[in-house]
Structure formats: C-alpha cells, structure tokens
C-alpha cells in the first residue's frame, strides 16, 4: 500500500528537538568532559535546555494534533499492551509518537527539568549563585552534586535508549525517522494510527509562554536579590589591603582559616622567601582583622577548600589538592605568561578574586 508523505512534525517541534539536542550536547560535553572553566557555558546551555522543555510543555497544550500531549500521552495499561505487541511483532504503526516514544518524551523532559533544578541548587549551595543561594548552605553541595550527576547520567541513558528506539522503529517501518524530524514529513498509510486533528493555537501558546517566562523571571529574580548568608566580608580593612598589596594581590581573609592567617602573620620576617615584616602594632591590627573575617566566617566554596599545612608541604594556596584539581587542565605555561606571572596571581583570571567570591562566571578561560 502506498503511503503519502504528510506534514507531521511542525516547525516548533523540529526546532525544539534539534535545539534541545544541541543544548544537551553542549551541557554534556562541558559537564562531563571539560574543566571547571566551562561552568558558565554549561549553565547557559543547560538553562536553555530547561527553557526549551518549558516551551515544549506549553506547546503540548496548544499545538496541533501531533504536538499535543493529549494526542500521544498514554496510560500504563496501553503502554504495556503496546510494548507486548512490539515484542510479538504485531504493533500498530503510529504516525506521531508511539506509546513508548511518548513515554520517552515525558521521561526526557522530566529529566531535563530535574537536571536544571538540581544544577541550580548545586550552584546555589556551592557557588552561592542563583535563586537557591539564599536558602542553601555549602554543606548541602556534595549531596546536590551527587543528585545532579545521577540525573545527568539518567539523561545520557535516556538519550541512548531514545536513539535505540529511533533506529529500531526506522528499520521496522522502513522510514528514516531522523530525516522526518528534519523535514517534518512522514508517510501516512490508511491503517496507521493518527492523533485526532486539533487546531494549533500559536497566539495562545505565545501568550502563555510569555506569561510563564515573566513569572519564572520574577520567581528567580526575587530570591537572587536576597542577601546570601555566609558572604565573604565586603568591607576590606585599608591597612590590611595596603600592606598586603605592596607585593602581591589582595588575598581575601575568607580564603584561609584563622590559624593559617595567624601563622602567616607571625612569620612575616620569612614570608615566602622574603622579609615582609611590619611593626608590632600594624601586625597585630592586621592579624586581628584577618582572623575575624577568616574562612570560618564565610560559607563560600573558596572558604571551604583551602587549608595550608606546612607539615605536609602545603605552604601556598596553589599547593592545596583542591587548587591543583581545579587548575590541572590549564597549560602550565599560561601561569608564567607576563600577564599572569605566577600561580599566586588569582586575580589575573578570576576578576573577583580579591572579593573572596570566585564566581565561576567571572573566571577567564584562556589557553
């Protein structure tokens, strides 16, 4: 029986599909493979994926027959029956999403939303960024990182299953489903199951979409404006800044615990191979200020990860395991370039280093 090509996947569905492929691909490569310097790219790409899924959900209620959830979402009973039919080789041909494909659509969209939620929560707890920063503590970040990773691996598994399903169905039905998602056209025979015809309502979709975007923007903006607990001290003691920056960048007190600072200040006569001694009064003043605003007073990531232990040969922040793990991807020659000078010059690449924040969005990525 001849099957006539008909428009099935509308322009939005196709655009959504391939944009989601691209954003998930970027998020996966930046998240799983590339170094921490790519966190901003990861966050942007992954947030785009979330926005795409939200738009697709709106379209699922306002699109035409093939795009509507009502046209392809099935309950577990029909899903199981369809799966049994597939195993028995007697399933009916669905022109739109078949029940297994529909389940995959829902699972992938849910997983992307879950990844976005856990990702932003992790960013809130770890980097003190975004709508969850005001409510989460740094101690929450390991659990959130694990959750985010588990969801990310789930997405990878779902993508693999989805590709398997596409290849299986393409072969079985003799139709290239990948090409169909590009052209939007599929062959429709008289025996095939098609969803009930429904008129697409792009105007309503756009209105609801914009309203949703506005509500979300407000819901994100409001908590972002709240004060973040455990913020590093913003007001820098002028004496401390002046004396420290005579020779090097200003290391924020929250980078090291108070006992580290006390030891550094007690041994200024041999400060990393130089005499940097100060008179007793100035030394005492700066030591007191550093200790009062040391790592113990902050809840940022940078306040939790550095600790000098001269007994173990960790005398510089760049000797700490965390520093090494985070900077291992960078070409060592980059640190010797005239602009950077040494591993001690955080501010060369972290524009906000002297504030103690180390926001990943302010870190420069250079070869």
């Amino acid at each position, binding site marked *: 029986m001849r099957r006539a090509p008909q428009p099935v996947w509308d322009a939005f569905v196709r655009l959504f599909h391939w944009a989601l492929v691209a954003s998930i691909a970027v998020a996966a490569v930046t998240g799983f493979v590339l170094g921490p310097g790519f966190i901003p790219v990861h966050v942007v790409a992954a947030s785009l994926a979330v926005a795409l899924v939200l738009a697709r959900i709106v379209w699922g209620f306002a699109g035409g027959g093939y795009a509507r959830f009502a046209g392809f979402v099935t309950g577990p009973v029909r899903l199981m029956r369809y799966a049994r039919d597939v195993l028995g080789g007697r399933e009916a041909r669905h022109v739109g999403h078949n029940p297994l494909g529909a389940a995959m659509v829902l699972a992938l969209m849910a997983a992307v939303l879950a990844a976005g939620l856990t990702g932003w929560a992790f960013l809130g707890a770890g980097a003190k960024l975004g709508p969850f920063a005001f409510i989460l503590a740094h101690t929450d970040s390991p659990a959130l990182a694990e959750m985010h990773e588990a969801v990310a691996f789930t997405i990878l598994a779902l993508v693999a299953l989805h590709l398997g399903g596409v290849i299986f169905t393409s072969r079985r039905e003799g139709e290239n489903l990948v090409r169909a998602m590009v052209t939007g056209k599929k062959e429709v025979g008289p025996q095939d199951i098609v969803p009930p015809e429904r008129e697409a309502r792009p105007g309503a979709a756009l209105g609801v979409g914009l309203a949703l975007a506005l509500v979300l923007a407000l819901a994100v903006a409001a908590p972002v404006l709240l004060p973040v607990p455990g913020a590093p001290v913003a007001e820098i003691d*002028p*004496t401390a800044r*002046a*004396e420290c*920056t*005579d*020779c*090097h*960048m200003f290391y924020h007190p929250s980078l090291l615990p108070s006992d580290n600072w006390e030891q550094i200040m007690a041994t200024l*006569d*041999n400060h*990393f*191979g*130089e*005499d*940097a*001694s*100060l*008179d007793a*009064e*100035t030394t005492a003043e700066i030591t007191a200020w550093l200790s009062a605003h040391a790592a113990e007073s902050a809840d940022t990531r940078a306040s939790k990860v550095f600790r000098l232990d001269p007994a173990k040969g960790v005398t510089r922040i760049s000797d700490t395991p965390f520093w090494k793990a985070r900077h291992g991807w960078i070409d060592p020659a980059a640190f010797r370039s005239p602009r*950077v*000078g*040494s591993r*001690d*010059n955080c501010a*060369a690449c972290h524009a906000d280093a002297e504030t103690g924040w180390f926001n990943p969005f302010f870190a420069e990525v250079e070869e």
Partner: protein
Amino acid sequence: MKGNFRKLALVGALAALAGWPAAAGDTSARQLIAQFAAQAHTQPSVARGKALFMGRHTGGKPETPSCTTCHTQNLRATGHTRAGKAIEPMALSANPSRFTDSAKVAKWFRRNCKSVLGRECTAGEKADILAWLSSL
C-alpha cells in the same frame, strides 16, 4: 642624632597607622642622605652604593640574591615583585616621588636589606644606596 632617629621612628609608626599615604612628603633624598651619612660619620659614595645595589649577595634569602632580583638592572624602568606586582622605578630622575616618605624608606630598607643581605643595612650603606639612586 639619636633624638632625630627617634622622631623618624615615631613619624614612621604614625604613617604606618594611617595606612601609608602615597607620599607623606616629610623628607627628600638629599635630606635622607645627609641624615644617614651624619649617623654613619662617612661620606656617601655613589660607587659603593652601585656596587652594593647591583651586586650578588649570599647572606640573605636564596630567592633574593640581589636588589636587582626585583628592581632589575634598569632602575629607570618598572621592576616586579616576585609575586608579579609592578614596582615603580627606583631612580630619582625617573620617579620624583621616591624617598619623600621617611617611614616608607625605613620600612623597605629594613625588609629588603634583610631579604638580600640577611641583616639590616648600616646607615652608611643607606646613604650610599640613596646617593647612587639619586645620581641616575
């Protein structure tokens, strides 16, 4: 002379408390050379100052064998601390605000002589170095 030195130390402590004004302007190279030379009962020597400043020494910290480690051989140009910060030129002709703040001069002579030589510089050595840097 002792009273004078005490006054210098007092000014230095006050300046340190105030957080280093860029140039206190309480002195000049000429005044400082005269004071140090008088303290040491020697005549300042440009040649001795040059030899001390440009030479390599072993008494101090291995990271800083010479003043030129950071200040470089070209004293009219900008030097660099080992941590990469710029150091304004040392030559008076290239940087007229040099040696106008007695507390700052005292602080850096104390620190840097210890780093390079392993001891404080004598008043005579200070007079020599300032004479050399003023002659450039």
